[in-house]
């Protein structure tokens, strides 16, 4: 029987799931319902090459998006407002109903917003999608004193791009280091140094108390009572899974949609993938929620396989990158639960990596280097973490020895 499959959310996970379902099932009817006008596109360049005018809108659309036409996968541009899991229907904001045999939820995540007690909330900009990126790009053309609230990856990437566009940038971070505690402090400090050397001002350990406006400029009051001025404000203060649609339903939620290792949710015939899913990872034996390009792709593919009836566990080792100025930061595996850290490399020209070990085997690593310098070793770490290999620590810590020899065939 021809299955009717609906994919809610038109991002990266949705696209890869659709492609995978079609690979395994030529008959199924596959429809993606997405609220964005564009066909699925890549988000990473939004804060980098798109802002820098090195990539345009067309460059962002996934090459794979052309399979939508070829493979008879429908993309409907609509906003879904209601879900009824009992009758297996979704309802759009213009009251159109869509029914399914199998539903994949891939609604991604949304930015946390700053709460203010005046009417300036709408004047703070956020970056999640192409529409927002377009607006920021247009509006900053004649702005030159930009404040970024939040020193996470997205805030820092925007700060790097704006600096390269010769804007004056001040970034405020509430914590005592950039990018959160998961990043080794020495790496966070090197990133800070790089921003500062390029002219960006980085303020740590401070909160925003108040934002007010006079003429066309903003005054930002910080927790130490100091004041900053800005003509444009962008905030990147973290994100949360897009689950508001499901809040009063039976779908089990906890920091996203809970899914097992087969991308199945608590409701039969309903799957979830990508940023929105808090999934059980069989290797780590814990639930994990990730916001990364590689995960969105691989989790979508895994959901597609399981929807097609292949029972495939999701065991992918987490991996993500952030590009700022000429630097490339990479993070792989799990870097929170360790009993030993080993350092490799001394400078960012050749790359510095921190390996996190538990019971002598590698669990994860974080590296920073000039573009391309840490990737190979981080990739090898991923392979070692996958197999839980006990490694020779002297080789790990000695940058003159290639790590290739640690991966036996």
């Amino acid at each position, binding site marked *: 029987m021809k299955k009717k499959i609906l994919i809610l959310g038109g991002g990266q996970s949705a696209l890869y799931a659709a492609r995978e379902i079609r690979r395994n099932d030529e008959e199924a009817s596959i429809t993606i319902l997405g609220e964005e006008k564009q066909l699925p596109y*890549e988000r*990473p360049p939004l804060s980098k*090459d798109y802002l820098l005018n090195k990539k345009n809108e067309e460059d962002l659309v*996934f*090459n*794979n998006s052309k399979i939508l036409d070829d493979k008879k996968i429908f993309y409907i541009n609509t906003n879904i407002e209601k879900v009824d899991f009992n009758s297996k229907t979704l309802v759009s904001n213009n009251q159109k109903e869509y029914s399914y045999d199998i539903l994949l939820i891939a609604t991604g995540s949304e930015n946390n917003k700053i709460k203010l007690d005046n009417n300036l909330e709408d004047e703070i900009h956020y970056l999640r999608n192409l529409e927002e990126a377009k607006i920021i790009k247009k509006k900053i053309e004649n702005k030159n004193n930009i404040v970024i609230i939040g020193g996470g990856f997205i805030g820092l990437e925007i700060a790097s791009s704006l600096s390269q566009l010769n804007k004056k940038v001040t970034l405020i971070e509430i914590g005592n280091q950039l990018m959160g505690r998961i990043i080794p402090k020495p790496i966070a400090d090197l990133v800070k140094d790089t921003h500062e050397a390029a002219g960006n001002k980085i303020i740590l350990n401070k909160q925003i108390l108040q934002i007010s406006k006079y003429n066309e400029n903003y005054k930002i009051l910080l927790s130490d009572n100091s004041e900053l001025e800005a003509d444009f404000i962008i905030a990147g203060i973290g994100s949360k899974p897009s689950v508001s649609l499901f809040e009063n339903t039976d779908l089990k939620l906890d920091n996203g949609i809970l899914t097992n290792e087969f991308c199945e949710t608590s409701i039969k015939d309903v799957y979830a993938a990508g940023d929105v899913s808090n999934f059980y990872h069989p290797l780590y034996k814990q639930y994990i929620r990730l916001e990364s*390009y*590689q995960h969105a*792709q691989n989790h979508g593919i895994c959901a597609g396989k399981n929807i097609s009836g292949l029972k495939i566990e999701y065991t992918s080792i987490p*991996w993500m*990158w952030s*590009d700022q100025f000429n630097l*490339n930061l990479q993070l792989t595996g799990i870097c929170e639960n360790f009993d030993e850290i080993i350092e490799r490399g001394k400078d960012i020209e050749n790359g510095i990596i921190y390996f996190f070990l538990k019971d002598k085997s590698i669990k994860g690593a974080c590296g920073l280097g000039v*573009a*391309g*310098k*840490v*990737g*190979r070793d981080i*990739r*090898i770490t991923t392979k070692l973490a996958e197999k839980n290999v006990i490694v020779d620590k002297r080789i790990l810590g000695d940058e003159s020895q290639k790590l*290739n020899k640690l991966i036996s065939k």
Partner: protein
Amino acid sequence: MAEENWIEVGSTDSIEEEDLIRFDHGDKTFCVYRLTDGFYATDGYCTHEVVHLEDGLVMDDEIECPMHQGVFNIKSGEALSPPACEDLKTYPVKVDNDKIYIKID
């Protein structure tokens, strides 16, 4: 005359098996690979962004970019995994008297 386009890269033992080296010639840069069944050459830079593949990881017939893990087939240049989506240019390679040559057009 075609002979002139064959440029000497170095000796065959300058590349370990399942590995690669960078080779610069004029204003061009290449990667030269040694796979289990012979030597191959491609453009040096990834087609996604300007990052040299010399720091990438060779796995079987594939080279993985060290920046965002885009993957290319070394023999055909085909882009196999995003974010790389544009194929990589490949070049003919020959070995003569333990020396590697690539043909640059």
